[in-house]
C-alpha cells in the first residue's frame, strides 16, 4: 500500500515537472511549482519525515510561490518564445547529465535499507543518546539545534545572505510619499477583509505554537518564521502594504534579520564565555538536559526571527518596487491576476 502511494505521488511529481516545462503561461507555471512542492511534502509525510514535509509545504508551496508571484507581477506574464534557438546542444547536455545521475543511483542503497551508510554512521548515536542527553521528544529538533547546530547556523546565515543579495540588487529604499495602493492589494474585497481579520490572528498564533512547541512536535524556527511571515503577507495582500508596514516598524524590521543571526551566534559566544566550546549548551545550566533545552530554545528563537523578518523584507522589497515603477496603477495588476 505504501509503495502504491509512493509510486502515485512520484508519478504526480513527474507529471507536474513535465507540465511546468510545457507551460508558457508563467502564472500557471508558478502554481504548478506550488503543487509540485505540496506533492513532495506528501511524499515526505509517507516517509515519516513530518518536519521536512512541514518545511516543504510552508516554504516550497507557500512562501516561495508568493515571492515568485510578487516578482511576476513586475514582469511579463507569458514566456517569450525563442524562435530558431539551438535545441541540440541543451538536449545533449541534459541527456548526458541525466544518464550520469541515473548511473550514479545504481550504487545507492535500496530505499529504506537499514544497512545504508546513513543509518549506520551517526543516526544510531542520535537515536540512542538524545533521550537522556537532551531529553526532548522531537529528535529532529535535537539534531538540528544541538548536535548539528553549526550546520543550522550556516543555514541561518544563508537566509540572511539571501536577503543581503536582494537588498544589493533591489535596494532598501522607502516607498515614495503619496503612493497608496499598488498592484498587489485586494482591498476592495469586503469578504476577504472579514475572513482575513478572522484568520490572520490564528495563523500568527499557530506560528508561535510551532516555534515554541518545536521540541515536542514537528516544527521549529524555520517553519514558524515562514508561517509568521505568511500571516503578515496575507494581511498585506488584503489590507494594503501601508497598513502591513505599520505592523512592524520598518526601522525595527530592517534590523531583525541581523538580530536573529546575532541571537544564534551570541548563544555560541555565551557558551564560550561560560567556559564551554562554541554552541556547547551544557555549560548553560547545572543539569545537562535542561541546559541543552535552554540552548535549543534560544537558537530556535534566533532562527525564527531571522527567517520571518527576511521573508517579510523580501516580500516588501518586491511589492514596493512594483509600486515605485507603476505609481497609482492598479488596473494593470488586477487584470493580470
Amino acid at each position, binding site marked *: 500500500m505504501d509503495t502504491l502511494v509512493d509510486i502515485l505521488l512520484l508519478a504526480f511529481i513527474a507529471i507536474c515537472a513535465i507540465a511546468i516545462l510545457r507551460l508558457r*503561461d508563467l502564472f500557471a507555471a508558478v502554481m504548478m511549482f506550488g503543487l509540485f512542492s505540496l506533492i513532495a511534502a506528501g511524499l515526505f509525510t509517507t516517509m515519516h519525515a513530518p518536519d521536512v514535509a512541514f518545511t516543504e509545504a510552508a516554504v516550497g508551496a507557500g512562501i516561495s510561490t508568493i515571492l515568485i508571484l510578487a516578482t511576476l507581477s513586475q514582469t511579463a*506574464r*507569458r514566456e517569450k518564445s525563442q524562435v530558431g534557438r539551438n535545441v541540440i546542444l541543451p538536449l545533449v547536455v541534459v541527456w548526458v547529465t541525466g544518464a550520469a545521475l541515473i548511473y550514479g543511483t545504481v550504487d545507492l542503497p535500496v530505499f529504506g535499507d537499514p544497512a545504508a551508510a546513513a543509518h549506520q554512521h551517526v543516526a544510531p548515536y542520535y537515536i540512542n543518546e538524545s533521550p537522556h542527553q537532551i531529553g526532548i521528544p522531537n529528535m529532529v529538533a535535537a539534531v538540528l539545534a544541538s548536535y548539528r547546530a553549526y550546520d543550522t547556523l550556516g543555514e541561518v546565515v544563508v537566509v540572511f545572505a539571501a536577503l543581503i543579495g536582494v537588498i544589493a540588487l533591489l535596494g532598501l529604499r522607502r516607498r515614495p510619499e503619496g503612493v497608496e495602493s499598488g498592484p498587489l492589494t*485586494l482591498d476592495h*474585497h469586503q*469578504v*476577504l477583509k472579514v*475572513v482575513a481579520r*478572522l*484568520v490572520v490572528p*490564528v495563523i500568527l498564533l499557530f506560528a508561535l505554537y510551532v516555534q515554541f512547541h518545536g521540541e515536542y512536535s514537528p516544527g521549529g524556527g524555520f517553519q514558524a518564521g515562514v508561517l509568521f511571515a505568511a500571516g503578515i503577507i496575507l494581511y498585506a495582500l488584503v489590507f494594503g502594504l501601508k497598513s502591513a508596514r505599520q505592523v512592524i516598524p520598518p526601522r525595527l524590521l530592517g534590523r531583525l534579520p541581523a538580530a536573529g543571526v546575532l541571537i544564534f551566534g551570541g548563544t555560541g559566544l555565551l557558551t564560550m564565555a561560560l567556559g564551554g566550546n562554541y554552541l556547547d549548551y551544557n555549560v548553560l545550566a547545572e543539569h545537562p538536559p535542561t541546559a541543552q533545552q535552554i540552548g535549543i530554545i534560544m537558537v530556535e528563537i534566533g532562527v525564527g526571527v531571522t527567517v520571518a523578518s527576511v521573508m517579510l523584507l523580501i516580500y516588501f522589497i518586491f511589492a514596493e518596487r512594483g509600486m515605485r515603477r507603476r505609481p497609482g496603477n492598479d488596473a494593470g495588476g*488586477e*487584470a*493580470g*491576476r
Partner: protein
Amino acid sequence: MALLIDLLSWALILTGGAFGIIGGIGLLRLPDFFSRIHAASLTDSMCAPCIIAGLMLQSGLTLVTVKLAFLIGFLFLTSPTASHALAKAALHGGLKPGKCHSPAEARPD
C-alpha cells in the same frame, strides 16, 4: 457501537471521496470559468470536510480529533473565500459569465 461509528465514518469518507470525484469531473467538463469555480469549490466545501469528519470518527476522543475539528473550521472559512476571491477577480478582470465555452477562450490573453 464501535461498528456503528465505523460504518458512519466510512460512509462520510466515501461521500467525501465521491464529492471529490464529482468536483474533479465538473472542473474538467463544465463549460465556463464560473461554473468551474463552482465545481472546484464543491471539492473544498464537501469533499474535504466529509473526509475529515470521517477521520475524526476514526480517531475517537483524542487530541487528533480536536486538531481535525480546527482543520474543518479553517477550511470552512478559507475555501469559500478563495473561490469568492477568484470569481470576483475574474469578473473584475473582464470575464463575463456564460460567454466562453472552451478553456482556450477562457484565457483572457
